[in-house]
């Protein structure tokens, strides 16, 4: 137990110290949300209607950018080999690293989203549902990104390949994530079904993704 | 001839795309197959054959162990049931 927590703490601390990685992800999110209205025109009504979509797509892209380094840094300096042969099962190691990614990248992106929503004229009444939906969906984002990261470990152009592999898997999160933000649905009650499905997707990913990621890590380490 | 109705161009386009895509797939598959067989024949001509086709000579042992890393990945390849000559 304590070994697991130590690993998690180490990863979180490394991510914070490296600082740049989180800053880059946040900066990228900002850039995406800034250039979209520049491309679409300043019509505030239009922007308000598509804001949830833009915010979700931007979040996914920013998460993808930082997904490559979930395992890469440890793979390169040999720490991953040590972890693989250590006391913790590789599945747990993979899961903890994905969790670290969520804590250090996912949550900051979610916290930034409402402020970016202001840029897109998203009504402030929808901010709680936006943040809730993203908090429910981003664990799935991080854990599925972990699958992609483990499959593309050490490969050329792994960043692009990771995006290609992971985006089809993100589609359900995107669809339900956007539905769970109030402007998109007809009544106040209808936010909850997509929200719960997002929770289900996240819970399923948290359980299943580390299994797949560990299998992929084992093939990469052999 | 064949009356395909007012939307004939769509029907023709659909069948055309199907034909082109299938043809490309067939040609690519056959070409790849032919290329591999040609390469294999070329190697055979140079005298480099699989262990199963070679007569059992002591000297082949060193080459066997050297080729082990590749063989370890696909062990089934090294256990043929029939000598190679019977393959067409």
């Amino acid at each position: 137990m304590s070994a697991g927590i130590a690993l998690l703490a180490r990863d979180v601390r490394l991510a914070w110290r490296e600082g740049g990685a989180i800053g880059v992800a946040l900066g990228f999110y900002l850039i995406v949300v800034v250039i979209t209205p520049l491309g679409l025109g300043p019509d505030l009504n239009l922007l308000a209607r598509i804001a949830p979509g833009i915010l979700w797509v931007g979040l996914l892209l920013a998460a993808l950018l930082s997904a490559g380094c979930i395992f890469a840094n440890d793979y390169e300096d040999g720490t991953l080999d040590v972890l693989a042969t250590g006391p913790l099962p590789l599945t747990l190691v993979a899961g903890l690293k994905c969790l670290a990614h969520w804590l250090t990248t996912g949550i900051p992106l979610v916290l930034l989203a409402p402020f970016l929503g202001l840029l897109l004229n998203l009504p402030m009444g929808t901010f709680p549902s936006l943040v809730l939906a993203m908090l429910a969906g981003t664990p799935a984002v991080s854990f599925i990104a972990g699958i992609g990261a483990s499959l593309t470990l050490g490969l050329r152009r792994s960043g692009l390949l990771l995006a290609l592999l992971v985006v089809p898997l993100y589609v359900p999160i995107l669809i339900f994530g956007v539905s769970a933000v109030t402007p998109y649905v007809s009544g106040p009650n209808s936010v909850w079904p997509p929200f719960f499905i997002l929770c289900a997707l996240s819970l399923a990913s948290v359980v299943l993704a580390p299994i797949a990621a560990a299998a992929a890590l084992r093939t990469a380490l052999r | 001839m064949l009356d395909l109705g007012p939307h004939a161009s769509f029907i023709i386009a659909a069948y055309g795309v199907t034909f082109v895509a299938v043809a490309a797939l067939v040609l690519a598959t056959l070409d790849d197959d032919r290329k591999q067989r040609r390469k294999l024949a070329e190697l055979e001509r140079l005298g480099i054959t699989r262990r199963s086709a070679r007569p059992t000579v002591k000297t082949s042992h060193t080459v066997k162990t050297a080729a082990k890393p590749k063989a370890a990945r696909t062990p089934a390849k090294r256990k043929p049931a029939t000598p190679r000559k019977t393959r067409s």
Partner: protein
Amino acid sequence: MISLANPTRFLSLVDRVVPWLSAVVVIVLGIGLYLSLFVAPPDYQQGETVKIMFVHVPAAWLGMLGYTLIAIAALGTLIWRHPLADVAAKAAAPIGATFTFIALVTGSLWGKPMWGTYWVWDARLTSMLILFLLYLGLIALWQAIDEPGRAGRAAAILGLVGAINIPIIKFSVDWWNTLHQPESVFRMGGPTIDPSLLTPLFVMAAGFTALFVLLHLIAMRAEILRRRVHALQQTQVERAALAEA
């Protein structure tokens, strides 16, 4: 399955099957095309454009069949370590991708005269597009990893993850209204399509399936030979190095 695990025996099987299967494909597709283009009557609603169904639907079925094959082969690689499982998966990916592509394009060409639009983001179309992207991902992963053992296992993992995702996508996209025709062939209570249209459809489907099997076998043969070539080239290099030493 076990007896086919031996690549050499598998190759001799392929060599025996290919000639007559090719003949079967040509004959069945020939009959199918004749039935589709000259015999099938126009639909009372869609007119002659229903003829697009005879290429669109079989292509869609085969696109999905291809991915199912890959998912089963993935189990073969990861659980039973069947030696030819990853060869089967790798060979099936481009074929399945091509049929999915055909389904998407012919569907789009069917949609324009019938629905007024080349594309719509409904359940079926989106799921098929995602399926196409999953195929592309698999092919890209195969290309990216040099060592076939690791590539086979990685692609198997990705194949299984994608297989889980396909029903999720279908389910998630059902929240939107669907413009695409609901199930009309494989449903409880039998097909809703008239037999005069059903027969050409099934003949074309049979012909395309035979084509799929034929191309798959040839592609598997090519892949097995490619690995042998690679191994022999390795031997060639090692012999040259030994000779120099």
